[in-house]
């Protein structure tokens, strides 16, 4: 591994790429303009709300004003009588499903819960829970009609705090949810839907053997994915029974599957057309609007579009779990020897938070031979939580990485050195039993250690620097690709992965590399569920890895077919035809470029189409290390991030600019999580800040430039060495910033967000303690 200079093709160099110098690619590693770029900078790209259909009706959703209430009755007659109102829908219009699971690839979900989340059945479980919906001739009319729907509620006590929800006497959300402990079920219904235990070695004995043990408690608030595009769905239920849905989704096929499941209709009757998607981060995998728009369309015979309001997004869609985490680590002879962790994550209104990932991630960066991890998934009267970029990992890493920093300080060891001494490597066993394949954590740590930022002087007495590491699993799953060869030597690439951040191009570049043609010679397009093979969600950092693999395999298929054709043209055997770097070679020195052979195809039997469908294995893991400088205004408690560097193992960066973009974007989301983002609930369980004014996501003025270092430890399970990139970068920031705040102030903050009043209070408290100590 050597440091190589940045890509000379660009005139700026935010990232240094540390790569294996022996790997040479023509297309991979370059920075072409993305194929869908022009449409997106001129405002022509069609997002979900840009869909126009003749006779289109507009929907609006009525949401529960109570955090927990029995729905006694719904009277929509007055609303239905209003001019312009065409239909009203409630849960009575959806099939009443009892427990009925569907496997979405990454996760199985309970369709009964999904349906009841789309439209509340019997009970409203959180403030903002959808209760009814209206379709009308305009969005204004639809919204006005909501106030004419009479809903009688019997208000029930609510619980939003995860620890309170675990109490025996807490308000119970579901009478049919029991605590599952790896297949065995509790006797009585409970808000605790899942209890997990992982263990390796002998933690009890090991802790007794340690020279130094630190146990700490942490809390994090619920935070939202914060995508800028409002969720929107348009449905047209045709008289022949075919349902077409224009969706803003991370996965058109899983959307199709969920729609069919919730509506109890054949999957083949549903066609999902994915529009351009304005951000998801895990929050646009689950359905909210699609079945509702569908039943309104069925009732009216017209297409119906529903777009959420921003308040509806905050109050009705998935934040990521708030958490309570306790982490203890023990050191013996300078090495991590024992670990214990207790995690409770709120799942929101229905079971299924991110506790499994939280438990498996909490110690995942380190080789800790003896560890015990206990986790709880807890229902509470909040919106059902959904995945948010490395779901479950950030909460856990905030705790562990802070304790690691404290241990390093107590031992007088540099915090990166301490991490290097204890880093997980190939062969390390994670607490869930998994043994790591080739991973790049050590290389990533070393690159951070070498980075100029790490040793740069700090500016002023209120400045501090912190580091933290992060881990994410990454997933593989199923992807498909079709490739049509054009006579001009270009190819059309048809895929099903919705493109949230430039993945059309990163996939097209892999096909281009395979075919020996330029990135611009590949024309990628994302198509609907009728037009391409099954493809799982754009999530889990899987698309460049798995859909890239599908494109590569489709490319290999095309080359095989073209070698057959060259053999036909040249009158030789296929095995006599070679293919190397975009050139087909035959006997007697004959050769044709890819374009040359493509031009021959129409007259030699016709143009060719290739395809591949893969169930990708071996996504391997992503590791990142972040360095944060902060400045703490001691008088106000405000923490400013003044410099930030992200270092990450990308396996192989296909399009470095978009890899950097993932690292930068994830880091800034993590900075928001660390400093200011939070759901603020009042005592009734109502979110007090459901606007983008008061739910404070970082603005351009709140963050510095985000430096990036891409480390490349190729993934042996991918033809180009790709590892997932997208999620890991959100994991380290809260801990890196907390560690930096400690460096600046001597204070350990263990509650997120580290908002100004909270930091100020801690400073005041520390001052008071100091005074008391002095006396």
């Amino acid at each position, binding site marked *: 591994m050597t440091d190589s200079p940045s890509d000379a093709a660009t005139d700026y160099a935010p990232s240094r790429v540390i790569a294996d110098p022996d790997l040479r690619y023509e297309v991979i590693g370059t920075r072409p303009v993305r194929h869908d770029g022009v449409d997106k900078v001129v405002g022509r790209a069609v997002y979900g709300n840009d869909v126009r259909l003749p006779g289109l009706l507009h929907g609006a959703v009525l949401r529960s004003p109570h955090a927990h209430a029995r729905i006694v009755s719904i009277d929509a007659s007055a609303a239905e009588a209003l001019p312009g109102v065409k239909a009203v829908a409630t849960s009575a219009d959806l099939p009443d499903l009892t427990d009925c699971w569907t496997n979405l690839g990454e996760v199985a979900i309970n369709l009964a819960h999904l349906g009841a989340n789309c439209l509340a059945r019997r009970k409203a479980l959180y403030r903002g829970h959808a209760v009814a919906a209206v379709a009308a001739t305009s969005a204004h009319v639809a919204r006005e009609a909501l106030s004419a729907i009479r809903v009688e509620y019997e208000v029930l006590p609510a619980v939003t705090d995860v620890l309170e929800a675990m109490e025996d006497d807490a308000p119970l959300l579901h009478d049919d949810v029991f605590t599952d402990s790896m297949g065995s079920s509790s006797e009585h219904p409970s808000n605790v839907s899942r209890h997990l235990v992982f263990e390796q070695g002998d933690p009890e004995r090991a802790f007794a053997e340690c020279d130094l043990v630190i146990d700490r408690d942490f809390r994090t608030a619920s935070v939202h994915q914060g995508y800028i595009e*409002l969720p929107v769905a348009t449905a047209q239920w045709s008289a022949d029974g075919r349902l077409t849905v224009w969706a803003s989704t991370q996965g058109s096929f899983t959307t199709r599957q969920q729609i069919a499941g919730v509506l109890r209709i054949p999957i083949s009757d549903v066609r999902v057309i994915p529009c351009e998607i304005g951000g998801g981060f895990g929050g646009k995998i689950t359905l909210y609007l699609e079945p509702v728009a569908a039943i309104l369309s069925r009732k009216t015979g017209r297409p119906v579009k529903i777009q959420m309001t921003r308040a509806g997004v905050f109050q009705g869609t998935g934040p990521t779990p708030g958490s309570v985490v306790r982490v203890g680590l023990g050191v013996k002879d300078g090495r991590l020897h024992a670990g214990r962790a207790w995690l409770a994550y709120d799942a929101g209104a229905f079971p299924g938070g991110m506790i499994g990932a939280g438990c498996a991630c909490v110690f995942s960066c380190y080789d800790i031979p003896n560890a015990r991890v206990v986790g709880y998934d807890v229902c509470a009267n909040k919106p059902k939580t959904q995945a948010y970029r490395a779901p479950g990992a950030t909460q856990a890493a905030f705790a562990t990485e802070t304790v690691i920093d404290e241990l390093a300080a107590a031992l007088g060891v540099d915090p990166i050195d301490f991490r290097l001494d204890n880093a997980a490597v190939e062969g390390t066993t994670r607490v869930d039993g998994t043994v790591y394949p080739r991973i790049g954590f050590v290389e990533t740590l070393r690159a951070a250690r070498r980075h100029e930022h790490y040793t740069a002087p700090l500016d002023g007495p209120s400045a501090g620097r912190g580091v933290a590491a992060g881990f994410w699993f990454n997933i593989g799953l199923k992807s498909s690709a079709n490739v049509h060869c054009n006579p001009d030597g270009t190819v059309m690439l048809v895929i099903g992965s919705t493109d949230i951040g430039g993945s059309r191009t990163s996939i097209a570049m892999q096909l281009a590399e395979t075919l020996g043609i330029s990135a611009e010679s590949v024309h990628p397009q994302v198509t609907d569920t009728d037009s391409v093979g099954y493809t799982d969600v754009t999530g889990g950092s899987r698309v460049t890895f798995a859909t890239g693999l599908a494109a590569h395999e489709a490319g290999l298929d095309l080359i095989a077919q073209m070698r057959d054709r060259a053999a036909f043209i040249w009158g030789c055997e296929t095995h006599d035809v070679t293919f190397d770097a975009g050139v087909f070679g035959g006997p007697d020195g004959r050769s044709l470029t890819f374009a040359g052979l493509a031009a021959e195809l129409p007259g030699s039997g016709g143009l060719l189409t290739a395809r591949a469908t893969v169930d990708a294995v071996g996504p391997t893991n992503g590791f990142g290390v972040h360095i944060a400088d902060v400045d703490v205004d001691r008088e106000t408690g405000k923490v400013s991030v003044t410099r930030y560097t992200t270092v990450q193992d990308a396996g192989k960066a296909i399009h470095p*600019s978009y890899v950097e973009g993932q690292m930068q974007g994830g880091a800034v989301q993590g900075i928001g999580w660390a400093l200011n983002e939070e759901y603020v609930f009042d005592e009734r369980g109502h979110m007090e800040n459901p606007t983008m004014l008061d739910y404070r996501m970082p603005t351009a003025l709140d963050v510095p430039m985000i430096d990036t270092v891409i480390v490349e430890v190729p993934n042996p399970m991918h033809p180009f060495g790709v590892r997932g990139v997208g999620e890991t970068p959100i994991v380290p920031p809260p801990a890196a910033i907390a560690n930096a705040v400690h460096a600046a102030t001597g204070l350990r903050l263990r509650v997120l967000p580290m908002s100004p009043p909270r930091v100020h209070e801690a400073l005041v408290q520390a001052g008071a303690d100091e005074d008391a100590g002095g006396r």
Partner: protein
Amino acid sequence: MKIHVRATVNGEPAEFLCEARESLLEVVRETLGLTGAKEGCNNGNCGACTVLLDGVPVDACLVLGAEAEGADVTTVEGIAEAGRLHPIQQSLLEHAGLQCAICTPGIVVTAKALLDRNPDPTEREIRFELAGNICRCTGYDKIVRSVQDAARKLAAERIEETSA
């Protein structure tokens, strides 16, 4: 009763009817079919609907359609001239200053207005004037670099024009 409004939209005279409650955002998107401006919050907190009103960036969701009477409105669709991308559009492409790109139309419009007013903005000035445009994907780094690069391109164009 609908209101009859005459305005200039993207350099062309435009007439439309709107309800008093309809925002300029609804008018450009629904009535005029210019769907480049996006709705992200509908209360002026995200900037995705930014358009120029008499040359100044505004949140189109906070302007009534009726207020556009006699005004000059420029949407993202009017930034490129005769099929030629504006340098800020070109720079965003070259510097990967967009990911999901739902905020991009607003960024393009605000950045264009910034460069019109201040041809050589500092990083701070760029961040300050773009703070009303929330981007959740990029972390802003590549957007800021794109604006800086567009400023360089515009400066080079000016030199070319002067020497020509």
